[in-house]
């Protein structure tokens, strides 16, 4: 099948999946013991007040009707009203999403920027010192509970050594363009703001990145080892090409493309672990918002967060598919 057709099918596939997801979460959230309305209004509310609010929120109508109403609104960008924050959920999403985006993106960046060179080193020095060290680091990285690591880092770097701030995201840069503090501070040409934001970002992003970093390292190592066995690697050597060109240009490209698809999958785990890391560092992101919504049974909030995360995950995987096709011509010409 042609690559473009493949991409089109993949993109279209996302829609029914998200649709199904929304149904799933909606059903799960509505079919519960416990009454969010009563929780919101408090113990002093009269039965009448509860009923009134319930009617207002549409919670007295049949489930299917509720879902259709919700869906109609969601398509328009209206995700309902949060009984907890007393705002439109859509507005909440816009406020909290950039923080999570920044956190997960930087974590992914760290994983790749640190993981790839270490993986290459392990492959080139296979079965020697650096390889064994990398294996141990990878094993530890995958097994470490992210929130525990976050706490330890907080303890060591923030409390004891006072190198980095303990919690939070820090002050916003003077300009608000994207909501991503690093980007915005650069746009405003304020390097001091950039540096401050970076310091707040350092520990959360690192704690989040550790698992993916370990994975990238092992994948690149395995990929490079396999590449080094290939005929074209031998051919490149036979033409007298210098080793650094062979490794960093010819072999790495192939090894990296193989890693790409798994990176997309890893992003999902990054998003999942963001819940824990944001909780530890009080990072004002979507996951942090989501955890609060969960605690207070703010279902509109929960549904919206779930759908946004599902959409983000799907888009990242789509992006990696596109990137894969761009980098590896074999996929395009099949």
């Amino acid at each position, binding site marked *: 099948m042609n690559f473009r057709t493949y991409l089109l099918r993949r993109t279209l596939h996302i829609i029914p999946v998200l649709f199904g997801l929304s149904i799933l979460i909606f059903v799960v*959230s509505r079919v519960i013991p416990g009454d969010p309305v009563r929780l919101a209004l408090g113990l002093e509310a009269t039965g009448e007040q509860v009923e009134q609010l319930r009617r207002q929120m549409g919670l007295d109508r049949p489930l299917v009707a509720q879902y259709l109403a919700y869906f109609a609104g969601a398509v328009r960008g209206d995700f309902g009203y949060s009984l907890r924050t007393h705002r439109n959920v859509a507005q909440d999403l816009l406020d909290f999403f950039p923080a999570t985006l920044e956190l997960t993106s930087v974590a992914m960046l760290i994983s790749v920027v640190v993981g790839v060179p270490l993986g290459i080193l392990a492959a080139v020095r296979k079965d020697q010192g650096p390889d064994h060290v990398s294996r141990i680091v990878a094993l530890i990285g995958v097994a470490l509970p992210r929130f525990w690591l976050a706490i330890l880092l907080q303890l060591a770097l923030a409390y004891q050594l006072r190198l980095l701030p303990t919690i939070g995201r820090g002050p916003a840069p003077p300009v608000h363009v994207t909501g991503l503090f690093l980007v915005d501070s650069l746009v405003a040409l304020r390097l001091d703001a950039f540096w401050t934001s970076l310091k707040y970002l350092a520990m959360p992003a690192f704690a989040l990145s550790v698992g993916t970093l370990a994975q990238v390292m092992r994948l690149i190592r395995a990929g490079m080892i396999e590449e080094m066995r290939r005929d074209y690697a031998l051919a490149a050597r036979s033409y007298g090409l210098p080793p650094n060109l062979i490794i960093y240009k010819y072999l790495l490209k192939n090894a990296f493309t193989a890693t790409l698809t798994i990176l997309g999958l890893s992003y999902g785990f990054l*998003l999942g672990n963001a819940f824990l890391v944001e909780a530890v560092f009080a990072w004002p992101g979507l996951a942090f918002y989501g955890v609060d919504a969960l605690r207070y049974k703010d279902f509109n909030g929960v549904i919206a967060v779930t759908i946004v995360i599902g959409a983000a*995950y799907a888009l990242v995987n789509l992006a990696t598919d596109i990137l894969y096709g761009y980098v590896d011509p074999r996929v395009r010409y099949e």
Partner: protein
Amino acid sequence: MAEIVATAGELRVTRTREWRKMWFRFRQSNLSLLGFGIIAAVILAAVFAPQLAPYPHHAGIFVDFDHALKAPSAYNWLGTDDAGRDILSRMLFGARISLILGLMVLIIAVAVGVPLGVVAGYWGGRAGDLIMRVTDVFLAVPPIALALAVTAALRPTLTNAMVAIAFAWWPWYTRLVYGQVLSLKEQQFVEASRGLGASRWRIAFREILPNAWSPIIVKVTLDMGFVILTSSGLSFLGLGAQPPTPEWGTMIAEGRDYLPGAWWAATFPGLAIFLTVLGFNLLGDGLRDVFDVEIEQWRAGN
């Protein structure tokens, strides 16, 4: 006819020989043996917690504020928490909780996911499509997120956390088994069985499935670690096990308030989680090498 039957019998004999060879290979890897050792230790700790714990009654409801937040000492090897309870004892009982929870989650996930995968892979058709679509929906969000969303609907207890995680975990097995069945379907011994007149049920569950077990076993082993990570994360957020249950994640959440002073309350339970997960990972890696198996990481929509 007789030859085909004889071959099937040989197949089973070869498998026994293969088990022995696999054990030999497993023994050769130091890291796998280390994993095995760690897990054996954790299991022993869990099973014999009442006997091993110096203060077994601390695992339940107990307060002794005179001895609260004491540093590690001869009386309390790992110190005490804010209610004066011995951390070591609580951690040993926590091993029970984590292991049982992990086991339960995976039993459910396998019991639900594997048959669905076999059905979807072998029968295919509209039922198969439907199953895979539903699987796609479940896999569209990371498992932690899904488990969290489900716990929102239920009261936060350990049992409910277990249900929620199982709810999020089963589709991975469906996907794994689906892929396995698809590739095994084409192989010769299936054709031989069909030629002999075996029913489709028999082929699916007695011929194909036994050959697909190795990746499932590897995945279950590795998943034990990841499920424990997820459940302790949920408990940490307050959405799983509740105090005074000595679950490792809950203990970290409790101990966190007393940082940086009483560092031991939050640190040691985390170490327990780390070592347990590490053990399962090493064991799982070792098994994978022995079985020569690759677990394909499927994605939604692929």
